């Protein structure tokens, strides 16, 4: 821990430094922050986080610092800030409603990285993430060959194809029903597709990026991109919105230019396949369903309509829109390792979502994110309701012609 030499500016982008000055403490973020809603504590609000970090900068760069010399932030001050900045799902709701467009969803990882550099972050088991990814190629610290345990026997996967599939660690190790649904749908579509051998697939690096521990990212990007270039991939498909986010937004920057292939979400591909007649439904689904927009898909990538097109193409379905939907969708509470470190908090936040579904009158809650899927699943275990949760590809795979 090097508090004396802490530089709170280096490493932040120009835009981020401007954003830190742009906050007017208007309170709009306070109204929408899911952590504030669940904890009833304004200290977790984005405006308080920004205010706190601004005061750290002020200590070394402000008027008093110019006149009387810089002051050092105390360990207590930094630990308090770490508590604020890491207890956040980075859902991006604050960014969506901020009147001056502060992109908090990108700002928080940058501030977390500063705390890691100074030596006061991250928190708890997050510190194990770099070791796990380095040694096991996944953030769970589990043998990487287990990544393929969900794959059905006899699955036909081409060595090379224009469509590639990236499983993602959360799907492979925690939400196997989701990724099983993905490969079943790909198989049913008849298209030629490829994927890395499960034991060779590497973490996308998102858990490292989001916790401010991104030293390995360059190496992960190089290996991951090459793996699919070698397979002749022109379009890489994945289900996890967090994986898709980092592949779309950060991989090109780290790779040094546009990726040699397009990256898309599974629902985008499936919507196209349905429209082209390559996926047809042999069964109907006579249920009232509501769809939960994952934070990193809706707010992070503006992908909101394709999942709806997929659902509304299913015969018999009665689609009900949740009151909070698309870019204003509620955060389920699971994001950003919150589900592991602040498990009870995440479960409570998941219950808010289940209540929304009940109020909307839906019977089924459709998910398309492994993180949401796992943690909201735990919320369901602690909440008595008739609503059931289903992954979108798990649903589609059970209804399409094979």
């Amino acid at each position, binding site marked *: 821990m090097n508090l004396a030499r802490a530089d709170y500016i280096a490493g932040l*982008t120009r*835009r981020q430094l*401007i954003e830190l*000055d742009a906050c007017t403490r208007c*309170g709009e973020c306070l109204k929408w922050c899911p952590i504030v809603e669940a904890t009833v*504590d304004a200290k977790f609000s984005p405006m308080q986080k920004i205010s706190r970090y601004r005061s750290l900068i002020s200590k070394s760069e402000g008027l008093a610092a110019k006149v009387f010399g810089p002051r050092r932030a105390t360990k207590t001050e930094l630990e308090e800030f770490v508590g604020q900045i890491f207890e956040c799902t980075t859902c991006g709701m604050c960014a969506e*409603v901020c009147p001056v*467009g502060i992109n908090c969803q990108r700002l928080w990882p940058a501030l977390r990285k500063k705390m890691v550099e100074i030596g006061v972050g991250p928190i708890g088991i997050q510190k194990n993430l770099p070791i796990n990814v380095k040694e096991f190629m996944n953030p769970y610290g589990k043998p990487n060959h287990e990544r393929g345990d969900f794959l059905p026997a006899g699955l036909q996967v081409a060595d090379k194809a224009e469509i590639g599939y990236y499983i993602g660690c959360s799907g492979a190790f925690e939400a196997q029903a989701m990724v099983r649904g993905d490969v079943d749908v790909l198989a049913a579509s008849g298209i030629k597709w490829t994927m890395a051998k499960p034991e060779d697939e590497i973490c996308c690096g998102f858990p490292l990026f989001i916790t401010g521990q991104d030293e390995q990212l360059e190496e992960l990007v190089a290996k991951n991109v090459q793996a699919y270039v070698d397979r002749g991939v022109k379009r890489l498909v994945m289900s996890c919105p967090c994986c898709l986010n980092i592949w779309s937004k950060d991989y090109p*920057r780290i790779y040094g230019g546009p990726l040699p292939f397009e990256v898309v979400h599974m629902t985008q591909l499936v919507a196209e396949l349905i429209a082209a007649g390559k996926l047809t439904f042999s069964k109907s689904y006579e249920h009232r369903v509501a769809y939960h927009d994952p934070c990193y898909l809706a707010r992070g990538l503006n992908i909101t309509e394709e999942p709806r097109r997929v659902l509304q193409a299913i015969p018999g379905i009665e689609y009900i829109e949740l009151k909070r939907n698309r870019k204003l969708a509620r955060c389920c509470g699971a994001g950003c390792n919150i589900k592991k470190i602040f498990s009870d908090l995440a479960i409570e936040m998941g219950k808010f979502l289940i209540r929304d579904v009940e109020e909307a009158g839906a019977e089924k809650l459709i998910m398309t994110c492994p993180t949401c899927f796992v943690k909201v699943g735990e919320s369901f275990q602690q909440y008595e309701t008739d609503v059931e949760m289903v992954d979108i590809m798990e649903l589609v795979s059970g209804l399409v012609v094979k």
Partner: protein
Amino acid sequence: MGASRELFWNIPSWVRFWFYGLATFSVLALAFGTWNRASIWARGEDKDGGRLDGLTVPSLLLLSLRRFFSLDCVKANRALPVSRWRGAMILSFIWGFFILFLGTVSETVDHYFVRFLIGRPYLVLALVLDLAGLILLLGLVVATFRRYVFTAKRQVISLEDSLILGSLLAIVLFGFGLEGIRLAVFAPPGLDWSPVGGLFSIGLRSLFDRAQLLWVYRPLWAAHFLLAFFFVGYIPFSKQWHMFAGQLSAYAAQDNWGDHW
């Protein structure tokens, strides 16, 4: 001679030295603080690939000033869709301050260079500035209610929030008070060209006689300008710096949200 106004009416001439001295100090503080804050921005890395990358300190500052005149800003395009009250408040600040600033510039030009604010031009200016001050005052009242009465649940209000809002309210009210005293003392032709100031003058005339009004005028004038100088000089050292940072942040946000921002 038609209606007009003397710039330092009822103020001893020796005060002008202090007036311009403090004004200079205020502007220097603004300049120093602005350069300091913008220099911090310029230390940021150019790794966003965004529209702010590569801009120098002067470019960033000029851009933030230019953005004040963008349609987004002058129509509060970002704030109005989210909240009509917030949008109206922001519009009142932008337009109120801008028109009052133009009024000050006009009066300075009139006093030091070319006398043109005599008769009808002066009366028109007086009316415009009265209305601008009223718009600004209404915006400040809305801001006060939003901050302290209809406040967001769990909103945290800092001392700085209260100081800024309080000082702005005082500046505007003192300004109307000063105008009210002048109108009460002179009862000039064209009182109805200053509706708000006129109302203040009626109220003040009912409370004070001429000698008292003249006496009150000086400390009120000093308070008005001291607060205004403090406010201007304090901008880069306070939350008010968001006036410039917010313009750039909203501009950069177009990289994410397209023309919506």
